[in-house]
């Protein structure tokens, strides 16, 4: 805090813009990261407005959620990494407890038990998206890097327990994302590639076992990916329609609110999981590349913050948050373009929906906190 303030004082011209920028710095906000995020959100609101059939009600709803998420980000940014680290185990345990509550007392919606209602409804699995990498980073913080086999087994357990519980809800998409965020921590922690290769080989029979445990509708999604035309009005419908939407957008798109696929309701889930297709249809290749560039910028900034981070906990956490964000973007866009099976993963910061946005922004708040609270090490 002192550091950034002195920077401000040293600057020769306290212009209004610099004033504002200074205020943001004092609030531990990382201006490039915030800029990238706000650009994505703004772009997202435009697309959402069109995708909802020009519903200002949903637009305002989303904008309010965005505001809440930004506030959450600001709050988290004020919490120093050391503080976060100290509270991490308790947070993780609390998260597990809530997951148990979900499985026993949760609200059922669309055939799955995902919600808890304490006055406000929320999904504890969302909190675990952050709690799992935090817990792993906490564990590795005081230990040797790269981790030994025994430590690896422990942190694998940190991943496995919540992943299993969330998969039981069932919420395969979130379970998968949490597992991936954990694996990212392990990779960033320097696990040897030889070991990874070995585990990769082991993963093949593991996948076969997993296949046996998958629900029929989940298996169907995999089949459908490889041959969407086999069931054009059933499971393949989403993929076919979203490919038509994106492909028909061409280089420059059909223009904002002129996407026939979305506006004539051919595209299902158009304002939630498949909003990327609306973007592709209305803004063309130019539009999707712009959004992907913004995402890439945010991810790059996140990795830069991770590399600049002073300790293991911060580094691993920042790296995991940034790369998990990448996984979000990749899985959603690959799903909408028909490259991976349809899993319920929204396009971050653009798809309509509340909880995931708060989690995401809280994650970026952690990144900002890490960056602004770092102490320069003597080199």
């Amino acid at each position, binding site marked *: 805090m002192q550091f950034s303030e002195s920077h401000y004082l040293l600057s020769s011209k306290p212009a209004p813009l610099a004033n504002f920028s200074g205020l943001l710095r004092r609030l531990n906000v990382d201006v490039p990261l915030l800029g990238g995020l706000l650009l994505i959100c703004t772009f997202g609101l435009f697309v959402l407005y069109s995708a909802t059939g020009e519903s200002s009600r949903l637009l305002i709803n989303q904008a309010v959620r965005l505001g809440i998420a930004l506030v959450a980000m600001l709050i988290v940014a004020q919490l120093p990494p050391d503080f976060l680290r100290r509270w991490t185990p308790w947070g993780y345990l609390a998260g597990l407890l809530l997951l148990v509550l979900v499985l026993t007392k949760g609200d059922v919606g669309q055939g799955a038990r995902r919600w808890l209602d304490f006055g406000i409804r929320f999904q504890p699995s969302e909190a675990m998206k952050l709690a799992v990498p935090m817990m792993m980073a906490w564990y590795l913080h005081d230990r040797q890097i790269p981790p030994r086999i025994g430590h690896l087994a422990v942190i694998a357990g940190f991943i496995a327990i919540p992943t299993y519980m969330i998969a039981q809800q069932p919420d395969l998409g979130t379970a998968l994302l949490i597992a991936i965020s954990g694996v990212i921590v392990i990779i*960033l922690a320097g696990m040897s590639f030889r070991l990874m290769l070995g585990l990769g080989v082991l993963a093949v029979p593991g996948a076969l076992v997993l296949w046996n445990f998958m629900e029929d509708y989940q298996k169907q999604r995999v089949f459908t990916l490889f041959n969407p035309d086999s069931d054009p009005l059933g499971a393949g419908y989403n993929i076919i329609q979203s490919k038509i939407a994106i*492909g028909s957008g061409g280089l420059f798109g059909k223009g904002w609110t002129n996407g026939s696929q979305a506006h004539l*309701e*051919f595209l299902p889930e158009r304002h939630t999981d498949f909003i990327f297709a609306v973007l592709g249809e209305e803004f063309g*290749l130019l539009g999707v590349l712009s959004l992907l560039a913004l995402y890439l910028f945010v991810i790059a900034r996140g990795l830069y913050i991770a590399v600049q981070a002073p300790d293991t906990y911060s580094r691993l956490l920042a790296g995991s948050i940034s790369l998990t964000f*990448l996984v979000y973007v990749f899985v959603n866009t690959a799903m909408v*373009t028909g490259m991976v099976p349809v899993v319920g993963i929204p396009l971050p910061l653009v798809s309509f929906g509340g909880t995931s946005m708060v989690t995401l922004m809280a994650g970026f708040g952690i990144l900002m906190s890490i960056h602004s609270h770092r102490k320069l090490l003597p080199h």
Partner: protein
Amino acid sequence: MKLLSPIKDHHSERLLFIGRAIIASVVSVMLLGLVVARLVQLQVFNHELFAEKSQGNRVRIEPVPPIRGLVFDRKGRVIAENLPAYQLELIPEQVDDIDDTLNRLAAINLIEPDDIPRFKELSRSGPQFKPITLKFRLTDEEIANFAIQRPRFPGIDFRPRLVRHYPNGELFAHAVGYVGALSAGDLRRLDSARYAGTSHTGKTGVESSFENDLHGYAGFRHLITNARGRQIPADSRELLDSLPIDQTPRPGSNIYLSLDLDLQQVAYDALAGRRGAVVALDPTNGEILALVSTPSFDPNLFAVGMSTAQYGELQNNLDRPLFNRAIRGSYPPGSTIKPMLSLAALETGATNLTRKTVCIGYFQLEGNEHRYRDWKPEGHGPVDLHDAIEQSCDVYFYQLGVNLGIDNMHDYLTRFGLGSATGVDVLGEGPGLVPSREWKRNNFSDRDNQRWYHGETVIAAIGQGFMLTTPLQLASAVGTLAMRGDRYRPHLVAAVEDPVSRERELVEPELIGNVAIGNTFYWDSVLAAMHDVMQGPRGTARAVGTGAPYEMAGKSGTAQLVSIAQDEEYDKEEIAERLRDHALFISFAPFDDPRIAVAVIVENGSSGSGVAAPIAKAIMDQYLGYGDDAIQ
């Protein structure tokens, strides 16, 4: 080093992390690159394919049914037209409780309770936004009544539509026929592209036989629809940059009938209250001038749709109003064939103009006691051919028949067009039957019945026994007599008019046969006898013909339905009305220049000359300009 290992080496850990972060960055860029490659594939290389698919997605082709051609009589008066009518519709998705709504509609008599299960089934199948028709035509009263109660029936509304309308009701029901709702069978048979959007098709009569001309060709228009096929309101049509061009439907051709509305009315009125048929035609070209079958029915019931109960009533009516007696009814021709047999007998030498037969009231075959009775119990005394025709002496013709033989009878009656379809231009014509030895051989299974018996020849000579003719065949036959042997194909349609260019294609008269009796003297003699039937001192129909302002020729007939036991008196009072003889009459006029030929049959009318002949006369009066309106 081992001692140091638990102590963290910050520098190397940082380097390790940076290495991993670089790898992660590279992998990230590769993953997003993969997505970009996919996007380029979809949006650049396959763009046209997907653009086409997206266009196909939003544009739906909706058929526009053509307007059915009109039907006019020979003077251009409308016989079948299309009128806007309000129909009652139900849109399933807008109705909360289909059962309740239908029950309440039945309660206010807008629909029949019997039809509720059918409507329920219809509302379940098919798209929920597509209206189903509950009633094809609402009366003004029903519209007014429903309009008041409309708020009670969300999802129920009335909508205008063109409905086939027959302004003359029952008058042309059998000649022109009617249209009815397309059945599953119709849909299989008809060209689905041409009938896209069509709800009705011709079922009988001209409506059915000229369906191809009357229907026209469906057009289509393009609609923008959403994924569920619902049309998007016009204000969002701006979404479309290049709508394919719509095609307007081609209306059906108009048809001009040879029928005359006035003549048809006279014939219908004359037959009123009876079961029977009238066919009048122009013998010089085969144009049918009147074609009536009674009792009739209102063809509008079929066009509009009727309740199951109404249809059942028509179907089960003992008088069979739906049955087209004029072209399908098969009746023994009775004495009406006597002029034709006379010509055959003269031509073959089976009789001559001077030979006389003494009629003693009955005829007996040699070596057989059975008496074939004359209609006149006391007999006609000595009669020649002229007398026999004029007075309709049965005994003369029994003898003539025996001389002529059944195969000659068959040969000549067939030349007059009896016993086979006339080839009239509407479907459903009955063939009739003129028996022969060969026919009997082929159509009976046991040996005794396969033989032809002399007695069968005897009764065939007065048009009884196996012999059956339709009123249309009799009209055609008497026309052939009038034309001295030339037989034209009877037809109802005189011209087909192109709906756009208004060009009319006339139906040319078609000579389809000649009786091939060259001796005009034979014709003169037989036709003179027919003339005297009407206007001779002893003609059977002189009561009808005498005093007419024009000369005519005719022949009455009476077809026995009940065989009368030997020596038993025929008492028509005692025979139940439906078992009485059929009354037949054939005639043409004017005698010297025949312009109209008429066949009349009145079921259970008892007397050809007494009941059927006045009907024929009324028609000829009208046609030749001496009708009631002409007198006024």
